[in-house]
């Protein structure tokens, strides 16, 4: 009997402790994102935009609490034509005081309606498609309701040189003049990647082709769709200013490489001024097994 009780306790006690720990876990709630804002007028925001378009909202998706709108471009004033674009509304709030504050997600685009969009284009090989976000504030310009345009939740005219928005035709002209005004020449934020999965194309167009050994994971748990690792270069197949045994950092698609494994990777360096050398995959097909060394070598001119 005593043995039976001890056996039951030995089963139950860990279970009780486990439930207690779980309860502590559920006591934590995902909070909000808060940002300190740098005030910019409509014209200043327009000067920072990588893309300015008139677009028709054709779809909206809610995934993992994030909302993304798909637009077909009806008129492009600035930026590269890449077909339909996807506008995300980030999950944070920017403080513009008690009277001026905004959340990107405050904006709701209606499917079937047209809008003028001033956007920042984010490019990453790790995402399904490029991500565009409103360049700033709650800049909201419905094409067929120009009078209802807002920035920071207030009439756009309050934060713009536009004195009146009453005449739609003059607004369209002003839009064009804003788009043509001197502006930041950046085309996107992030690292551009090769838009091909053909191995020969990827290898020939990649800046670096390296054989690396995967070391410790860094930034663990910080992104849901990718892992970054400290890696040791074991062979330089292509690329300058990099050497064998050098330690570099590479971001991979989630769970696609194993620690201590050796791989051949085609890469782009994120930025030459980083403290640690971070590299991104040069395409969506840039990781190969070390056994493919000979085949990959054949593609290198």
């Amino acid at each position, binding site marked *: 009997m005593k043995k039976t009780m001890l056996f039951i306790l030995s089963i139950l006690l860990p279970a009780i402790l486990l439930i207690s720990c779980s309860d502590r876990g*559920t*006591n*934590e*709630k*995902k*909070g*909000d*994102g*808060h*940002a*300190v*804002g*740098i*005030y*910019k007028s409509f014209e200043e*925001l327009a000067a*920072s935009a990588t893309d300015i378009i008139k677009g028709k909202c054709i779809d909206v998706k809610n995934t993992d609490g994030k909302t993304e709108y798909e637009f077909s471009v009806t008129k492009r004033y600035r930026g590269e034509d890449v077909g339909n674009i996807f506008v*995300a509304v*980030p999950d*944070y709030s*920017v*403080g*513009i*005081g*008690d*009277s*001026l*504050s905004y959340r*990107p997600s405050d904006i709701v685009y209606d499917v079937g309606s047209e809008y003028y969009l001033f956007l920042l284009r*984010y490019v*990453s090989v*790790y*995402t399904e498609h490029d*991500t565009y*976000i*409103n*360049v*700033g*504030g709650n800049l909201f310009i419905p094409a067929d309701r120009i009078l209802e345009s807002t920035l920071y939740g207030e009439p756009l005219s309050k934060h713009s040189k536009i004195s009146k928005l009453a005449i739609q035709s003059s607004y369209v002209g002003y839009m064009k003049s804003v788009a043509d005004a001197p502006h930041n020449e950046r085309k996107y*934020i*992030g*690292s551009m990647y090769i838009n091909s999965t053909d191995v020969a194309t990827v290898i020939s167009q990649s800046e670096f082709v390296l054989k690396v050994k995967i070391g410790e994971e*860094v*930034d*663990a748990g*910080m*992104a*849901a*769709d*990718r892992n*970054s690792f400290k890696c040791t270069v074991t062979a330089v197949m292509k690329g300058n200013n990099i050497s064998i045994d050098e330690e570099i950092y590479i*971001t991979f698609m989630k769970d696609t490489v194993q620690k201590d494994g050796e791989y051949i990777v085609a890469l782009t360096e*994120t*930025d030459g*001024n*980083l*403290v*640690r050398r*971070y590299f*991104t995959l040069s395409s969506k097909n840039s990781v190969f097994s070390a056994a493919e060394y000979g085949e990959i070598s054949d593609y290198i001119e």
Partner: protein
Amino acid sequence: MGKFSNTYVDNNYNMPTFYFNSGVNNAKSQWTSALSISMQSSTQELARIKCYGSTAADLYTRFGVVFDDNCGGLTYTTYVSNSVSTTYWGGNRKTIQQLNRATIYVPYKEISYSDQIDTVVHEFGHALGYLGHSSNATDVMYYKVQNSYTLKASDIAHLAQFYN
């Protein structure tokens, strides 16, 4: 609310005009003194407050975090359920929350030294539990970046309600 908030700091941008480290040191110095707490350096895994400074491109590539052009710095928090409190200070309604963890991202921007320091001190305020912003233009927790980065009595008194 604990009396300590271990921190992990990662500055990955090698630009002389990026004053992220100075901002973090200033923020830690001011807030620990003001709230009588300690902030020890910790590992990324164990830290309650993680701070990342770099280019917007690097932060996007590594973490997938995006910033609009108004964002000076950005803090994401997780908090203890039902811990959000609304209080009044100096006639203004403000909110505080009991935090579990916070992650601060500061993208490099071509703004002044003072504005960069102010940004980091401000974001640490959020990381320590200050929800929303002050409507007092002289406060560091005022809504927008400003020249002064010295914590004011009202900045401190608000969070001190938790920490004291």
